[in-house]
């Protein structure tokens, strides 16, 4: 049980389990193998631009592991069609920034087919994608656009915060009968942690109280959970007991756990790597001031990136990304 894996390796393991346990699961994406099965040519496949899918074409073959052309609209649209006709595709959108080239299959097809058809179809599609800043990858490879898929009814959006969470949430996502956008924050991809062996699912729509506390709630998800925990440690040293909630899935949103935490502490900070406008942070803050109004002892603070594209320079990128210090400052400002 003390086995440690990186998030990337945990995801690879989840995919293997899903593909072994269900022959209708297929993997599609750009370079998910890298020119197909190369084992016979004396060369090796890369297994995705970050190596996450290495080895899969060897086990599952080219019928079930499909390198697509660089054509995201075709890739996702085809995955939606396959999902509506008997397969359970796991599609890779290399970086979520590329959603600009393939929003239609998500916005107007995957999310709406079931509803438009009066409930007479299901679209069991999962789209894995990488989100977030921190690698100096600049404005077109660093965005945290999960707010965009969260805002689309009919889609589910999941963001794991650790290797073990990634494995269990990905298995649940693949097996979910609705379309799921599964986000892999850059900040956790190389993180290493204990990962249970075997097949397990973490249900969608259930937030996780990562740390209990009574004075202030810090709602976070993905790479910001670690920041929240750091901030909680610092706050503890200063005599403030912080509760840290990991949302896990942004849609469905576990309102009950959020409101229960607020009821307990009366004070709320929401931490989100994305830019502020129409963000998850502000969405959760709105929930608090509606259904949680009676619990509120202080302003709800949103800790997000600024309203700007992601800059390249390391200095600017650091200024751009939310930090544990920003959370402490937010708690301080609450009075």
């Amino acid at each position: 049980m003390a086995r440690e894996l990186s998030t990337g390796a945990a995801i690879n393991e989840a995919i293997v389990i899903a593909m072994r346990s269900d022959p209708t699961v297929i993997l599609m994406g750009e370079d998910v193998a890298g020119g197909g099965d190369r084992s016979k040519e004396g060369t090796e496949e890369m297994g995705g631009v970050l190596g996450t899918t290495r080895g899969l074409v060897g086990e599952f073959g080219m019928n079930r592991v499909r390198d697509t052309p660089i054509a995201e609209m075709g890739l996702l649209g085809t995955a939606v069609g396959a999902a509506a006709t008997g397969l359970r595709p796991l599609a890779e959108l290399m970086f979520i920034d590329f959603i600009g080239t393939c929003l239609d299959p998500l916005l107007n097809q995957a999310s709406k087919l079931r509803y438009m058809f009066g409930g007479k179809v299901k679209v069991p599609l999962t789209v894995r994608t990488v989100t977030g800043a921190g690698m100096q990858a600049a404005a077109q490879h660093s965005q945290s656009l999960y707010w965009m898929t969260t805002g689309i009814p009919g889609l589910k959006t999941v963001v794991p915060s650790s290797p073990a969470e990634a494995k269990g949430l990905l298995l649940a996502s693949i097996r979910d009968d609705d379309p799921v956008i599964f986000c892999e924050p850059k900040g956790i991809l190389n993180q290493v942690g204990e990962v249970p062996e075997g097949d397990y699912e973490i249900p969608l729509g259930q937030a996780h109280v990562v740390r209990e506390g009574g004075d202030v709630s810090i709602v976070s998800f993905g790479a910001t959970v670690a920041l929240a925990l750091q901030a909680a440690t610092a706050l503890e040293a200063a005599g403030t007991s912080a509760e840290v909630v990991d949302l896990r899935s942004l849609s469905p949103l576990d309102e009950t756990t959020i409101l229960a935490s607020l009821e307990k502490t009366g004070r709320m900070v929401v931490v989100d790597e994305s830019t502020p406008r129409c963000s998850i942070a502000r969405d959760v803050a709105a929930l608090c001031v509606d259904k949680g109004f009676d619990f509120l002892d202080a302003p709800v603070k949103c800790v997000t990136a600024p309203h700007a594209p992601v800059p390249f320079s390391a200095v600017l990128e650091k200024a751009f990304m939310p930090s544990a210090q920003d959370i402490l400052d937010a708690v301080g400002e609450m009075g």
Partner: protein
Amino acid sequence: MDFSRDALIRTYRQMRTIRRFEEKLQELVAAGKLGGFLHLYAGEEAIATAVCAHLSDGDHVGSTHRGHGHCIAKGVDPRAMMAELFGRSTGTNKGKGGSMHIADVEKGMLGANGIVGGGIPLVTGAALSAQVRGTKNVAVAFFGDGATNQGQFHESLTMAANWKLPALYVCENNGFGEFTPTEFAIPVKDIVDRAASYGMRAVIADGMDFFDVFEKAGNAIDAARAGEGPTLLECKTYRFCGHFVGDPTPYRNKQEAEDWIQNRDPLDIFERKAAESGLLLGDDFRTIDLEVDELLNEAVDEAEKAPHPAPEDVLTDVYVRYS
């Protein structure tokens, strides 16, 4: 002629049903009874009918905003379609879809589609599904000339060609994309010229002639089932009505329109050719016409009497599982 009397009757009945279904819609709109955007297929009936004659329920079809003909040809019940257009809970889509989203997955009908080009990758995915699962099914995308300018067309055909998918891409070249003439919007003379970009087999058919489309679609579908990959089939046709019901067509050349409508009606052409075979007589056609009329009158009556969805249904069918 390789067709039996039964096959000819079936075919004519289908084309007639499509035509009459839409004539009903025009009457109903004029009477203020239907809402939403309606795009009529009139003039193009031979295409859907001929292509779908080669398909079974296990084969998938994807359609467009102009989808009534494809639905009827693929075996969707015109009564349920009519109820859908009335927004009733007995409709194909329980009233949630309307004209641009009529679907019946059990019949292999993957939906009309309000996004130009949006159905093309869905169909490509259905073909991928057939290939991965090792069935002998095919998938057919219907789309307009204008849709070939969409990136979704290009990306989908690239993938289908790379993977030799069992797919058929049927372009209904009806001379217009909305109000813009095809030659103004597309830089090549024939849509089949575009297949060179995918090294894809491509064929032109006379979209007004059921028999021509039937033969060419049949060859392409046989090839697809045999693992020989996809085909682009261009059917030359003409949109008899405006782009949508209510379009006054001030932009269109009256002479040209008259010529197509008077002289190249696919139902007339079919009737003439079928009559030449001696298997069907003029009276046979008129009998079918009456039967079709009756069916559609009933469909309208039923639809008008059918229940509306309940307001609470606005929140059902969004997800399979909500938690």
